[in-house]
């Protein structure tokens, strides 16, 4: 990301109908007893992608990853990697390596021996192993740490050993299970960029499991949001954030105000919605819904604006209310506004000016307004 010398080409193979997927998940399902972990999942991931599986804990993302690695056998469906059917292929014969959440470094081996383990299984010549291990140590910036044991390293160093060990065999696919979960915040942010750099340099396809939306948004080329074992939406971080397909996705990824209403008219790609609960009418981009149909509109808090004065046009996309809470986050503040009809809206405003005295404060009468493009009509 910080490499600005060469402009990066926009590679979007998922938009190219001629491109064939590198990793193909077809109708995969897995249950543990009565517990459905993954239900009929289809995915197509392209070569060189940095793909995130994002979801709350228990949504089946880790089970899906473990099926890609071969540690779990799917009940139904199949997985193809580079055209080869992985059904019945044990983990040690798959062209896939995994970075474990616990790192799973071998405690009785040195850093070098840990990294060399995979190459040694292939019977690579000693000199080649030594070269590759040195190369990997340099890649993860751990030169000089080769003779240490894992317990002599910090958490961040262990994480990099785990990465080096998983990359040393140049796998077709690298699976990362919550790779940054054990790191503190600053180190995590730094490591996110490092991971992306390494991924771009090596061109290896990464599939990462995470519950941290920020992590997924920062690193991914595309992401799949999962819930209850099913994939709810697949897309680039911007697509998923700006056009969430469902209420779950809108609320899981970032913050969202969801206003329920009823369509009153639909014309020229513009819907008019009466939202009685919020006490306003909404004009929003969209079509396909007939007049009278119930619907929900999601607004990101930063797409709403707050004003003390009544706007010129209050017929739509404006609602009056009272500020009842303010969360000051430093870079921005989130205002909780109760509309006169009783609904609660969260409005985020960047604190672009230094703000010791607030222009808008508790119990102020305010108007919340937004542009017609700000809201997203949710399918479900």
């Amino acid at each position: 990301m910080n490499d600005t010398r060469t402009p990066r080409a926009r590679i979007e193979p998922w938009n190219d109908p001629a491109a064939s997927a590198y990793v193909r998940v077809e109708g995969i399902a897995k249950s543990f007893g009565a517990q459905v972990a993954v239900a009929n999942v289809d995915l197509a991931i392209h070569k060189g992608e940095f793909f995130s599986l994002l979801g709350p804990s228990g949504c089946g993302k880790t089970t899906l990853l473990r099926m890609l690695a071969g540690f779990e056998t799917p009940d139904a469906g199949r997985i193809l990697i580079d055209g080869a059917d992985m059904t019945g292929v044990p983990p040690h014969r798959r062209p896939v390596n995994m970075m474990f959440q616990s790192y799973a470094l071998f405690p009785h081996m040195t850093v070098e021996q840990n990294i060399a383990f995979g190459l040694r299984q292939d019977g690579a010549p000693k000199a080649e192993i030594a070269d590759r291990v040195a190369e990997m140590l340099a890649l993860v910036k751990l030169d000089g740490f080769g003779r240490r044991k894992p317990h002599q390293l910090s958490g961040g160093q262990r994480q990099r050993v785990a990465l080096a060990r998983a990359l040393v065999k140049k796998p077709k696919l690298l699976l990362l299970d919550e790779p940054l979960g054990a790191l503190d915040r600053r180190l995590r942010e730094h490591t996110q960029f490092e991971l992306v750099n390494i991924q771009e340099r090596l061109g290896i396809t990464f599939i990462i499991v995470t519950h941290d939306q920020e992590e997924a948004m920062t690193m991914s080329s595309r992401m799949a949001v999962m819930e209850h074992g099913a994939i709810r939406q697949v897309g680039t971080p911007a697509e998923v954030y700006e056009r969430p397909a469902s209420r779950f996705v809108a609320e899981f990824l970032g913050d969202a105000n969801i206003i329920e209403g009823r369509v009153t008219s639909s014309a020229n790609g513009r819907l008019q919605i009466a939202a009685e609960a919020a006490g306003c009418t909404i004009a929003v981009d969209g079509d396909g819904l007939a007049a009278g149909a119930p619907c929900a509109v999601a607004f990101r808090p930063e797409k709403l604006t707050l004003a003390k004065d009544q706007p010129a046009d209050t017929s739509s996309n404006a609602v009056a209310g009272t500020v009842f809470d303010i969360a000051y986050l430093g870079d921005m503040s989130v205002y909780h506004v109760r509309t006169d009809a009783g609904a609660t809206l969260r409005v985020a405003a960047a604190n672009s000016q230094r703000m010791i005295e607030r222009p808008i404060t508790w119990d102020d009468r305010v108007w919340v307004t937004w542009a017609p493009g700000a809201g997203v009509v949710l399918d479900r």
Partner: protein
Amino acid sequence: MNTSWGKRLVIAAPYLWLGLFFLIPFLIVLKLSFAEVVLARPPYTPLIEWLNAAGQFAPKLRVNFANYLLLLSDDLYIRSFLISLRIAFFATLIALAVGYPLAYAMARAPESWRAILVMLVILPFWTSFLIRVYAWIGILKNEGLLNAALMAVGIISKPLVIMNTDWAVYIGIVYSYLPFMVLPLYAALEKQDPSLLEAAADLGAPPWKAFWTVTVPLSLPGIVAGSLLVFIPAVGEFVIPDILGGSGTLMIGKTLWAEFFNNRDWPLASAIAVVLLVVLVVPIVWFQRQQAARAVEDGR
């Protein structure tokens, strides 16, 4: 003051125990080993004679090395030592070969089962050791359960002679000491992170290779502890060779018993006991050194 006394007492308790029930008895045995056998009660000469023949006070130290020299010169004793070490060594190997899969299966069993399985391993201790060894006679003798079963199935046509041979001694030792092998192995295997084996598989190691390169090295402390716990008591074992072994099974524990009770040669028996202790202390010290070195290396 009170707490400090209480603390001292707690710290002193194990030392007092060791002093009272190990060190003092050992010193008595050591003293005995330097005495001469006499037909008297007690059947040995005192180490220090306080009075001379004329009844005057004239302390005189009488140290007799003849018992130790006899141990070296009479090959009966050297042979018993060597046979004991050999039997203990192979019994330990067999116990390891039997115990490792057992401990492994226990450690991989569902978590709710493990406590029950550990209980089952300990369960035999609820019956007297002596009775369990005696019970093996009923199984191993010529017209015993084992031979009857094998003949009924038709594997053999005439009974196998197991009782009163080294085989019976091996069976007895492995049976009796197996829990001491299984429990430390189980403890070492149970705490192993299963994701390590997954990592090994992920990096291309087939299951058997993952076992040899990850599971076994990581369970080494359990292997060493279990082996010492079997080997050390097996070397000095007296009951099992006496009950199950034949007259040809010459183990040092049996020899010691014979010297003590049959020959009433307390000094010689004591000398055997001292040598036995020294022979066994060497591997224990070696083991502790290993453990300490490992701890230093791992920075614990």
